[in-house]
């Protein structure tokens, strides 16, 4: 019997490759950075990665099912606008605001799911349309960029644990805190939410059904799995993750902006991150954590432009080339197919 790690590696080749690539890129980056391996750099980098990472995780779930959600970027924009209105006032009000923000994202996702399941419209087209609706709603909530997200909250959530405790009146120098004090809060959010939401979901019957649908929908039906429920849940969860991204973006920038171009860019980048993270566009293989790493890779590439004296204008070019090379790796399998009819399935 294979060892645990060897088996994990063969079953998660794409994911493992993504982690290695990320580590190689990020460690090299820190060596090259004049203030590499410092808390300040880590805090800044984490802040810039949270929103895209959440949107990438959101995209993963419909993709695992063999679908696609073109509205994730728009839902992120919508929820960041909602958050920019609601997340202020007393701590209780702020918490309520955050809750409502996340709820609206999940509700929007659930609507996508219902349209796909009961309206029998292909996910890509349905979410193309609902994406427009989300942007419209975002413009209604926030016709002009702006908003007043609580300043303390902004400071507390975009810096280290030390600053968080300091902001909310704790003793940041307490002994028990010392091991954690330098960890950036965004990093905790970035890994905490999927740990609390995605991993349990993956182990539920509904989560497993999503994988089964993407892998072999017919066999999933024959095995009596709850297909409709799983599809709606998948889009709902996508909406929730997109809302996490939106909420953080609003807190980080202290404002909201119903920017159509930004929404489109986030959606497209999310697809790229999903593929880089080892999730198959045909469904069935992969996971949200992979996409998180995929998103981090995209971000690290952009960090390089700052420290190397490369023209930042070349950034999209390099990103595109990396993406094309990454997806071309998967193509070698098709070149080995012996029965050409299998190519068409």
């Amino acid at each position: 019997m294979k060892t645990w790690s060897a088996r994990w590696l063969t079953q998660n080749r794409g994911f493992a490759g993504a982690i290695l690539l990320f580590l190689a890129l990020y460690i090299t980056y820190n060596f090259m950075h004049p203030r590499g391996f410092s808390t300040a750099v880590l805090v800044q980098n984490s802040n810039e990665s949270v929103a895209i990472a959440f949107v990438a995780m959101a995209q993963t779930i419909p993709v695992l099912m063999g679908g696609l959600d073109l509205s994730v970027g728009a839902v992120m924009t919508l929820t960041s606008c909602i958050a920019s209105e609601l997340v202020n006032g007393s701590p209780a009000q702020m918490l309520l605001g955050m809750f409502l923000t996340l709820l609206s994202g999940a509700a929007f996702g659930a609507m996508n799911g219902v349209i796909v399941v009961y309206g029998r419209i292909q996910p890509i087209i349905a979410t193309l349309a609902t994406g427009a609706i989300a942007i419209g709603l975002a413009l209604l909530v926030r016709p002009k960029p702006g908003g007043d997200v609580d300043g303390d909250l902004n400071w507390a959530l975009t810096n280290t644990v030390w600053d968080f405790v300091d902001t909310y009146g704790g003793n940041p120098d307490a002994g028990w805190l010392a091991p954690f004090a330098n960890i950036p809060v965004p990093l905790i959010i970035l890994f905490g939410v999927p740990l609390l939401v995605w991993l349990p979901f993956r182990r539920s019957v509904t989560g497993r059904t999503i994988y089964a649908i993407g892998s072999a929908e017919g066999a999933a039906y024959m095995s009596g799995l709850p297909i409709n429920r799983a599809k709606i849940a998948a889009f709902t969860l996508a909406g929730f993750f997109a809302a996490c991204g939106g909420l953080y973006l609003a807190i980080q920038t202290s404002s909201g902006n119903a920017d159509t171009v930004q929404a489109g860019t986030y959606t497209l980048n999310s697809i790229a991150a999903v593929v880089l993270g080892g999730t198959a566009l045909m469904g069935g293989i992969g996971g949200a954590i992979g996409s998180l790493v995929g998103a981090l890779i995209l971000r690290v590439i952009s960090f390089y432009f700052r420290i190397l004296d490369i023209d930042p204008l070349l950034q999209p070019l390099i990103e595109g080339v990396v993406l094309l090379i990454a997806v071309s790796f998967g193509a070698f399998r098709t070149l080995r197919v012996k029965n050409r009819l299998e190519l068409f399935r």
Partner: protein
Amino acid sequence: MNRISDANKPIVIASVFVLVILLLGTGYTLATQGTMPLFQPKYLLQQLQTGAFLGICAAGMMMVILLGHIDLSIPWTLTAAAMMASTIGGPWAIPTALAVGLLVGLFNGLGVAYLRIPSMIFTLGVDTVLRGLMVAHTGGFSPKDEATPLMLYLAKGTLLGIPVAIFVWAAVSVVIAGILAKTGFGRSVYATGTREGAAYLSGIRTRRVIIGAFVTSSLCAAIAGVLLAGYSAKAYQGMGNAFLLPSIAAVVLGGTHILGGRGRYVGTLVGVILIVLLNSVLSIMQMPEAYRQIIYGAVIIGMLLVYGRNARITS
């Protein structure tokens, strides 16, 4: 209800909806301004002139969607063609744009047909690469070069009182409709999109068909780029962004199935007109952008629900 074939139902519904838009819009203008611009030829022609850019993109997009694929590289193919055309300038401007389209299309087609990478992600990557190339080429600003006189004429000139752009759109339409209905290649596109395995076993070279469709799509984007650069007198960053999603929407509203194999070019034409008129009525009504987007999305969902209902009853 009259017997209308399944393929034509969406076209008929979309056409009825176009009429509804015209009537509602006219009702609004009569009530508020006492005029009816939507029935004035001049106004309509002006709308169609701006609609030509979308119409040409949608024509190319349709070829790819008929195969069950998608071309997300349209925005920057369009922009790259326009920028290269204005950079080269002179008599070679338009051939350069077409060459850009041809190259991008071949590259997309090779990736999708031979490497069998999902078109969704491959064309997305190509779009990003093109953006990178163009940003690097222009330094991130709108290029200084101006569109050539021929480009200006094609986009803004008039012939017999009708904008030349509409003639270009009509010519592209005739070519695409002709390809789809009258050539072996066109029928092979439908066959491949319906079931690639069966088409392959019928001795259709499906990989060449896929490449051909992607080339057509990129060429159409290049033509739209030439026109748009002429219309604005120059190429500019992000000029293609506004065309990707509407062109997909127009194709689907026209009754082409997003998974391929079914759809008529007339439908795409109606789909484009629907979107163009919807936009112009909404701007006459001075509808805020927010409501526009919501109406836009709701119309797509609503119409597809209507189409879908039909499909279920007849199946």
